[in-house]
């Protein structure tokens, strides 16, 4: 926890003593005593204003999408933090957050596991925020009956085949939703990345996980201060020019991605949208994140939200990450 959280006493009495002007000059949004989002490298050339509420996306958009969602949980041997934050570009353009996330324990009667996931609604599609939320929900429902199998298949093609089966089922149900809404399934386009993590491992030092994805939402393991890529996006071009193409549910699932491995009690496993992974191509960003999250350092939920709201010039997309820290019981 950073010093600015520990040192502050926010009681009215303390505030009056610390700041005698406080009663006469109410604090405005522009004089917040809470730190601004951290800037890494060169910050955007505009302020991190929330702006007005985004315009409604129509009757079928469902309930409002909050600017920011925070979540977290504590399980034996695991601590989870998640945040989904509307990007500067969507705030500036009065548009809603299109990312979504989820965290659940799932059970097939023989095994239970932690499921964490993130989804990134395709920017140009009007209902992609619905698609992102629906993909997370469907993943929970459709992956749960296979919890044991996800670990039993032993990675490799077995895991990929199982994930393809589940991903196709998610796609089918999203297509059904599109038909129900009388919209083209592409309007619900979303990427998806998830991790299924053992909740009752034989040892805290060898907790098995399976990573699943469609598109450029991805996963990393933070170990000894280094972020290790769990997946390679098959649509990414390795050469000089950065690719814009990605696979997406439900209309273009393409090549699904999988990985498996183990995390120990000092590792952190993160699933994230590319609003997170794109700026992480900068070493400065990775170093800052590792400085916050490596080893025994586990932020509070609110602190995690503040950290994830870091700003880097030109990276204004929605940013969503769910991080799972292993720790000894």
């Amino acid at each position: 926890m950073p010093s600015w959280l520990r040192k502050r006493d926010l009681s009215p009495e303390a505030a009056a003593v610390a700041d005698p002007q406080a009663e006469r000059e109410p604090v405005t949004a522009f004089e917040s005593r809470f730190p601004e989002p951290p800037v890494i490298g060169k910050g955007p050339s505009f302020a991190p204003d929330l702006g007005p509420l985004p315009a409604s996306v129509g009757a079928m958009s469902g309930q409002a999408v909050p600017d920011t969602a925070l979540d977290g949980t504590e399980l034996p041997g695991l601590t989870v933090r998640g945040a989904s934050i509307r990007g500067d570009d969507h705030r500036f353009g009065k548009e809603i957050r299109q990312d979504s996330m989820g965290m659940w324990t799932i059970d097939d009667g023989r095994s239970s596991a932690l499921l964490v996931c993130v989804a990134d609604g395709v920017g140009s599609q009007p209902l992609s925020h619905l698609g992102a939320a629906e993909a997370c929900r469907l993943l929970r429902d459709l992956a749960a009956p296979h919890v044991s199998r996800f670990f039993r298949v032993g990675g490799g093609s077995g895991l990929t085949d199982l994930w393809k089966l589940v991903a196709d089922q998610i796609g089918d149900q999203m297509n059904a939703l599109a038909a129900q809404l009388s919209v083209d399934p592409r309007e619900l386009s979303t990427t998806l990345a998830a991790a299924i993590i053992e909740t009752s491992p034989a040892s805290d030092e060898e907790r098995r996980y399976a990573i699943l994805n469609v598109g450029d939402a991805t996963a990393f393991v933070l170990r000894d201060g280094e972020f290790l890529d769990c997946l390679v996006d098959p649509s990414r071009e390795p050469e000089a020019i950065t690719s814009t193409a990605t696979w997406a549910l439900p209309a273009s699932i393409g090549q699904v991605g999988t990985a498996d491995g183990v995390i120990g009690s000092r590792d952190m496993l993160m699933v994230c949208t590319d609003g997170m992974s794109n700026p992480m191509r900068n070493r400065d960003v990775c170093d800052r994140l590792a400085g916050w999250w490596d080893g025994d350092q586990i932020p509070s939920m609110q602190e995690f939200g503040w950290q994830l709201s870091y700003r880097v010039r030109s990276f204004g997309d929605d940013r969503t990450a769910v991080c799972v820290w292993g720790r000894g019981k």
Partner: protein
Amino acid sequence: MGQQVLPFYLVCDESGSMSGAPVDAINESLPSMHSEIGSNPVVADKTKFCLIGFNHQAQVLLPLSDLSTVTSIPGLQASGGTDYTAAFDLLYTTIAKDVAMLKANGDQVYRPAVFFLSDGQPGDNWSAAYQRLTDPLWPLHPNILAFGFGGVDPATLQQIATVRAFIADGTMGPDSALREFAASLIQSIVSSGSKPTAGGTLTLAVPDNVPGFTALPADLV
């Protein structure tokens, strides 16, 4: 510390046949482009703009720049003939140099977008220079939108465009049509810079229709 960058290149014919209303229309549109893009921080943070003029030779009039920091854009001056080889060769070397510079800075560079504008048939054999520029094996090969009016052959435009070609349909004078061309360029830059595709990546927003122009499919090669 690297940024995401989508580079735009306006490659504009300034041969003698462009003199008068056509070149005036482009020159009058440049300040509004400067102002609209430069004053939109979301767009200006992610896009850069370069202006190349060509007649029988080609010249970089504005090196690849962040429009929010540019104080003025040099105008076009019409004279001379029309040589596409000079334009394509300079575009090739300029893109190569610019991308190398951006990559050296750690930037994530998206495929360059070229708006090519011409009003006349070229007097040279430009095929080899064009093939080099658009060779799929060249990792930096740009997306090209070609706009034409006056004496340019629609088939020539279709050969040049890799994305879409537009030919003036005669419903507007050249000055009005070129203002519409400039408006479509501004709109493309703004949309490309402010509306990310899947998860924040940048992609070229291609205009479907431009008033005063008929859209033509790009030739498939």
